[in-house]
Structure formats: structure tokens, C-alpha cells
């Protein structure tokens, strides 16, 4: 049978904690730097504006589409291929004026395209005014913050405060790096990416909790081992499972990425990145945090409500 990880590995994960910490700090700083300097490529959900996706019978001449849009004087516009050479999507920035103006803009763009390409088929179109986009943005920030906060409470309640804090640091690490990923790739950051962020929070946490659970069990069981040894032992014991689950999840995600269609590509890209980062962070960030916060054995033994040793 296939064994990803040989039995009884004795990798000294904690020995690499300083390197991991340095790498992560750099990546986090780089992400923040990128976010500040390049900003994200927000979708119309967050910045308001309009978009039209269409299909032609011939491959789309993106340059010509750009020229046509330019002649309409709509300010900042974007044109990109949409899954196939015959399909394209244009984005138009929020126009001055009320919501009605956004709608007229779509109609103007459509009628211009229809005049040029009589066989054009419109796949989708939409516009979002500034009120709704502002709300979506604040709701998104609120959602991610709330999720992280609840997680902190839950882990604190189930384990100890050091675990809660360690898990949350790992989560913030994952979220920041994912935002950095979107800043550097300039993939569109839209509402579904918020969903991806929350799922990454859930997934990374899942991983962290499995490791923490083992740490708690081992602290109680092996009272001769130092905390560092217990952490290394727990990480090695759960390593097979950590990799196994990441791989099955990645298999599903890659299937979505390659076959799930254009609309959710950004979402799956974020998830794939998040799963990789989340797996890394539960091993190299969340666990060393317990060492930095110095979990005491006595704390774990008093709380032996569900002792299994």
C-alpha cells in the first residue's frame, strides 16, 4: 500500500522554527508591502462599476474592443479573455452619477458592440453602485474578523489561551499571505474571494486543531519529555494525516481549477494557495507558537476533563 510518509519519522520540525519564522515574517512583510504599493485588483463587487461578458463567433480581437471602449469615454476600462478565445469580459469603472447611470452605461456598451458584431451573444452583465459595493466591502472585513475572533474563543475554551493565540497567529498569517498572493498576481479580488478566505480560515484551523489535539494528548501522556520534544513527536505522528488530507483536498481543488469554469477560477486559485499555506502554517507557525508562549504541563493536567491517558 502507498505510504506517503514512512512510519516513525523523526523530523525535527521545531529545529526549523527560527528559519520558518524568518521566512514567514518576510513573506508577511512583503504581502503588506505589496498590498500597500500595488493594491488589490478589486472586482466590481467591491469598487462598484459595470461588467459585460460576451461571446463572438470568431476569436475576440481584444485590441479592437479596447479601441471601441476608449471611444466611448467611460474612464478606466479593462478587457480580458473569458475562458476561451471567442469569449471576453470588459470591466468599466464606476461612472459619475447615480445607479441609473451605471445601467445606461451597460446598455451603451452593449449597443456599441452589437452594432459592430451582429452575432454577439451576451453571457452576463452587471453593475454595482457605490452604496452596495461599500456595504459588501465592510461586510467582508467584518466576516473575516468575526470568524477569527470566534475561533480564538473556541480554541481558548477547548484548550488553553496559548493554543488560541497560536492558532489565531497562524490564521492571520494565512489571510495576510493570501491577500499578498492576490496583490502580486493581480487576480481579481471579489466577493467569492472573501468566501475563499473564510474557507481557508476553516481549513487551516482544522489542520492546526488536529496537531494541537495530539499535543495535548502527548503532554499528558509523556511527562518525561520536554515541550519541544512533545511538539516534535506530535507533528511527526500527525504528519501522514496532514499530508493525506491536504492532497485529497488539493485533488478536488485542482479538478475545480481546471474544469470548474471561468467564474470560480479566482476562488479555486485562492483556495489552492490557502491549503498549501494553511498546511505549512499549522506545522511551522502554530506549533512553535506554543513553545514561544510556553505552555505549562500543569495547566493541561488540571484541565483533564476528557483525559485519555
Amino acid at each position: 500500500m502507498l505510504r506517503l510518509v514512512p512510519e516513525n519519522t523523526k523530523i525535527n520540525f521545531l529545529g526549523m522554527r527560527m528559519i520558518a519564522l524568518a521566512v514567514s515574517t518576510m513573506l508577511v512583510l512583503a504581502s503588506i508591502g505589496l498590498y500597500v504599493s500595488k493594491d488589490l485588483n478589486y472586482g466590481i463587487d467591491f469598487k462598484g462599476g459595470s461588467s459585460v461578458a460576451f461571446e463572438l463567433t470568431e476569436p475576440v480581437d481584444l485590441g479592437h474592443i479596447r479601441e471601441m471602449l476608449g471611444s466611448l469615454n467611460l474612464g478606466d476600462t479593462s478587457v480580458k479573455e473569458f475562458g476561451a478565445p471567442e469569449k471576453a469580459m470588459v470591466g468599466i469603472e464606476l461612472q459619475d452619477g447615480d445607479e441609473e447611470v451605471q445601467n445606461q452605461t451597460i446598455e451603451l456598451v452593449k449597443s456599441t458592440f452589437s452594432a459592430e458584431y451582429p452575432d454577439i451573444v451576451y453571457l452576463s452583465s452587471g453593475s454595482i453602485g457605490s452604496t452596495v459595493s461599500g456595504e459588501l466591502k465592510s461586510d467582508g472585513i467584518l466576516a473575516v474578523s468575526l470568524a477569527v475572533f470566534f475561533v480564538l474563543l473556541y480554541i481558548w475554551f477547548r484548550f488553553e489561551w496559548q493554543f488560541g493565540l497560536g492558532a489565531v497567529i497562524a490564521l492571520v498569517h494565512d489571510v495576510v499571505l493570501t491577500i499578498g498572493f492576490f496583490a502580486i498576481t493581480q487576480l481579481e479580488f471579489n466577493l467569492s474571494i472573501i468566501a475563499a478566505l473564510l474557507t481557508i480560515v476553516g481549513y487551516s484551523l482544522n489542520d492546526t486543531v488536529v496537531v494541537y489535539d495530539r499535543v495535548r494528548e502527548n503532554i499528558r501522556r509523556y511527562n518525561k519529555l520536554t515541550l519541544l520534544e512533545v511538539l516534535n513527536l506530535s507533528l511527526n505522528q500527525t504528519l501522514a494525516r496532514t499530508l493525506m488530507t491536504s492532497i485529497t483536498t488539493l485533488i478536488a481543488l485542482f479538478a475545480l481549477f481546471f474544469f470548474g469554469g471561468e467564474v470560480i477560477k479566482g476562488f479555486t486559485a485562492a483556495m489552492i494557495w490557502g491549503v498549501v499555506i494553511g498546511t505549512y502554517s499549522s506545522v511551522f507557525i502554530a506549533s512553535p507558537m506554543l513553545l514561544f508562549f510556553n505552555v505549562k504541563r500543569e495547566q493541561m493536567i488540571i484541565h483533564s476533563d476528557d483525559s485519555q491517558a
Partner: protein
Amino acid sequence: MILAVCLFGLWSAMPNFLSLEQRASMQGFLPEKAVSLGLDLKGGLYLELGVDSDAVVKSRMDSLSDQVKDIRRTERLSLRQFKVDGSVLTFNLRDVTEMDKLLPKLRPLAQVNPTLLGVAKAEIEIENDELGNVSVTLTDFGLAELKRQALAQVISVLGKRLDPEGTREMSLQPRGEDRLILQIPGVKEVQPIIDLINQQAVLTFHMVDETTTSDDIARGRVRPSAMIADEYDGETLIRKIAIEKRVMLTGENLKSASVTFDQNNKTVVGFVFDTAGGKKFADITRKNVGKRFAIKLDDRVISAPVINGPILGGSGIIQGGFTVEKATELSTLMAAGALPAKLTVMDQQLVGPDLGADNIKAGKMAIMIGFAGVIVYMVLTYGRFGLAANTALIVNVIMILGLLSILGATLTLPGIAGIVLTMGMAVDANVLVFERIREEQALGRTPMNALENGYRQALSTIFDANFTTFLAAAVLYFLGSGPIKGFAVTLSIGIVTSVFTAVVVTRLILVLWLGGKRLTKLPI
């Protein structure tokens, strides 16, 4: 028990695998509901509409002001200095001694609606001082009630306007106190829908002011009781016309409206008044033979015919140089009634049927490939134990579909992503258990012992790990909107069913399989 749960899941998921005809032939045996598809999968229009609540409040305050002026006339009171500011109406009573006469007349102006607990709350609050200053204020309750009623009216009117036959499967739901979400499947063009939404469609009937000459109109000189309006023939402005301000009849008195043809075979809109309206109409037409009558929709006079004789039947036609489309639009607007205020389109998304079909195809493809990938990988790693986990995985996907059908949830593309993601994560619980069994066996336990211990030890971990993911999904559900909600629903359902299938179902399979055998080592 376990089997019963699985079979129930299968039963409720069944309609999703069958075509409509098959479903019809099995009526009574299978549940009727299949998962309904979101607009991103079947194509259609999503609109978020805002109701102008300020205008609703203003029109209520204006009508209060008119009612007070009516009291002034009937009671011959010395009222002056009328002023409306937001939700406050103020005026002054010159002769303070008349206050006792005024106040009892003001109180009935409040529309009192009993609350849930049966306690009546006042919609307005009346205050006065010794100088004769009176203020009529809408209370917070009154404001909330006003907005609630306006929203309810918008939903009812839009329902009649956009779906007079009731066959469109559209959904109109309030969101917050002054917004609503409109979803119509199968729509390809946005503009006709927006045209129907954008008009408030306040229909009023006025007499034409014949004393004002066209010269006066050009100079903008009209009597205080009259006003100048634009007269249209179809879509073209033909002239300015002076009409009496006084409203003779309104669209509220209409019973129905429809497109018909007149004797010249021109498209016209026919309408029928209700009993009260019909009587008034007969009265007006009898008294005003030979004069002109103006029919006004919002700020346009759409027709101003001469009254040729009394119309007693309570019905009439509007000739206005309409195309068939315009006449249809007008009759729909007339039949549905007026909106309490103008609506704004705040957010719109149109998904064409082609993209919807593409999305479904892509979603199916991703599910199958993801499924196959995970299944093959599990068998490669855990052998026959992997088979047990795969069986559980299949049961899991069926149960997700079943639960979605029962809950009447809507499946969106992010929802499909949720299912695919759950498949990847669903095996996690089994991976936890299987790895634990391997460990226990390595520690030298007997096969059945290792199996038991593996499940027991992994259980608390599985619970903790899944509960935290569930937390994130719950936050998504409560704060997310539209498709994101759909994703949160499938993800949370997936978490619950995957724990059930991975822990309970695989265990059953393994116990059935290993139960009678004497093994020295588990094949894991």
C-alpha cells in the same frame, strides 16, 4: 438506524437524478422537490432595488398637511405657517382659544396599527404650546411602519407588473428596511424589466383648464388652481397643456386594464373602473360633455380626449398613439397600480442562459473528476479501508443533495465548489481514523482492538476540527449574500454529513467486513 438515515438521504436526493417526466411518473413515491438552481446556473436577472424612503415619508407628511388644511376649512380655524421638515409638520393657530376645538380633530389622523402584543402604538405624536404652535411628528414606530407598508406595497405592485400571470418563478424579497432583492430566471434583456420598475406609475385624471390660452402657457401664466404639464403622443412630446390641479379620479379606482383596438384598428388601452370609480366617472362625464379630460401618468399627460357624451358603463379607452409594446407596458402598469415611491436599481447581475449551462457543465465535470481523483487516491493509500471510506464518500454526496432538496436550498456555482471541497475534506475524518489505526497497530494491539481504539481516539479530534470549520461556514452564512450564502449552506451541510458518514458509515462497513474473520493484522 444508520441504514435508515442513508436510505432517507437517497430517497430525498432521488429527484435530482431523474428527468421531469420520470419524476412525474413517480409522484407520491418520491419527494417532489429537487434542488433549485441559482441564477448563475440557470441564467436570469438579479436586481437589488432601493425604495426612496424619504419620498415615502414626504408623501405621508404632505397628506397629513392636506388633511389638516381640510380641518381648517370645515372647522373654520385660523391656521397658518404650514411647514414640513423631515418627519415633522408644524403650523400655528392664531387664535389660541380654538385649541380645544382643533386637538380632538387632529388625533384621528394617526393611523393606529395594533402591534403583535395587541398594544396599539401611535403613528404620530401631537404637541402644542401656549403660543398656538402645533407640531405633528411621525414616531419611530410610525416611520418603521410606514417603511414596512411601503416595502410590502412595492413587492405586491412589482409582482403584478413583472409577473401578471404568476408563471415566472420570480422571487421578490425584502432586505433591510428599504431594499429588496428581485430575481427572475430566464431573462435575457434587462432594459424592458428596468423600464417597468423605473416608473412610479401614479395615474390621475384631471379636467383640462380651457380658460388658459396657449399664449398664457408659453409665458408660464396659469391660475393658482391649475398647472402646466407635458402632453405626449406615444413617445413624442406634442405640446404643453394646462390642467386643473384637482384630481378627479386616480388609478386606485381602476379594476383592470388591457390592450385593445379602437374602430380605426389603432392600438389603445382599455380600462374598467371599480363601482365607486365608475359612478364618479359617469358623474364627471355627464357634467362635462364637450370639455377635455386629461389622463396623467407620473409627470406626463398621455391622453386628453374630448368628452363626447356621458360614459355610464364605468369603462373607457386611452388613445395615445401607442405601439403594441408601449400599450402593453401601460396596461400592465395601470393594472398593477402605483408604487409608493420611485425605485433605484442599486445592483444588477444578468447571467445569460449559455453561461448558466456552461457553469452547470463545468460544475458536473469538476465534481466527477474531483470525485474520481479522491477515490483512486484513497484506494491506493488504504486499500480496502479506502474502499470503505469511498463508500462513505458516495453516501455523503447523496446525503448533501438530499438535505439541500429537503431544505429547499438553492444550488449555486460556489455551492458546487462547496460540494467539491467537502469531498476533499470529507475523507479527512477517515484519514484521521485510519492513521490512528495504523499507529495503534504499530503499538502492537490486536486488529479489533486497534480498530476500536482508532475510532475512539480520533473522535474528539474530528469533532474539534470540524466544529471550527463549521464556525467559519456559519459566519459566511450570516454575513454573506447571494451565491456566497449558497456556498456556506453546502459547506455546513457537507461538514455535518461527512462526519456522520466518515465515522458511522465506515465503521459499520468495517465491522461487517472484519467481524467474522480472524485476522492477525489489519490490511491497512
